[in-house]
């Protein structure tokens, strides 16, 4: 197989993760926040894959599958919540959902 320098491979999930962080912090729309979280989860999964590939072991892919499962569960519940919030607050602005403020 080909050899790509590991540093180059590793920088990709880092960049994706950072972009996801920015998305979560910047976007006010709940859907976008959820999407950004997906980006971060995907970056984490990518990191697992890279680690698995580095050692040539299946464990990385197994962990990625678990991350995938988690993402699926998270999205289904998250989207259901977003639908509820939309009906309740008639907006998707996350700052409007501040009933928990101290």
């Amino acid at each position, binding site marked *: 197989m080909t050899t790509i320098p590991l540093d180059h491979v590793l920088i990709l999930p880092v960049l994706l993760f950072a972009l996801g962080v920015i998305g979560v912090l910047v976007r006010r729309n709940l859907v976008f926040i959820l999407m950004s979280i997906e980006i971060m989860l995907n970056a984490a999964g990518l990191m697992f894959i890279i680690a698995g590939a580095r050692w040539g072991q299946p464990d990385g892919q197994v962990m990625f599958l678990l991350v995938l499962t988690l993402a699926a569960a998270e999205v*289904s519940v998250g989207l259901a919540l977003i639908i509820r919030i939309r009906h309740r607050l008639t907006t998707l602005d996350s700052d409007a959902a501040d009933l928990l403020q101290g």
Partner: protein
Amino acid sequence: MNATFYLSAAIAVLSTVLVITRANGVHALLYLVVSLLAVALVFFTLGAPFAAALEVIVYAGAIMVLFVFVVMMMNLGDAAAVREARWMEPKIWVGPSILAILLTAQLAYMLDSNTMSQPHHAIVPARAVGIAMYGPYLLCVELASMLLLAALVGAYRLAHTEHGRL
């Protein structure tokens, strides 16, 4: 293969940047799908074809469709996109960007400081993954199934209408 990797990595990063900057939800989602497909390709180049396929099937093919479905169901229209654009002022970007740059720098520094030998991207076949999953990771699989069941029940209950009202 090297070129494939660099190309798809570049596409992934670029489309992710576009994801977090788009005002229109569906556009952002499409870029996210592109990003995921690119990442799937990265998986493939890294010797994880099984993960790559699942990335496409589950992430791009199911999870993102769910997103699209919800966005379409809300059918926010142009007004929402305009407002979304208004929310994205430069000053809002500053803080998170600094944080993200710091994070990237830190992670890059940490990863760089670990002097690892060159990778040997051996292909890990689906069979090996399956054996590992139903061998040492059996408990994790069970937990994941529990999680999915809980998510199923939870999502059903949350989105369930009673007397036509949410």
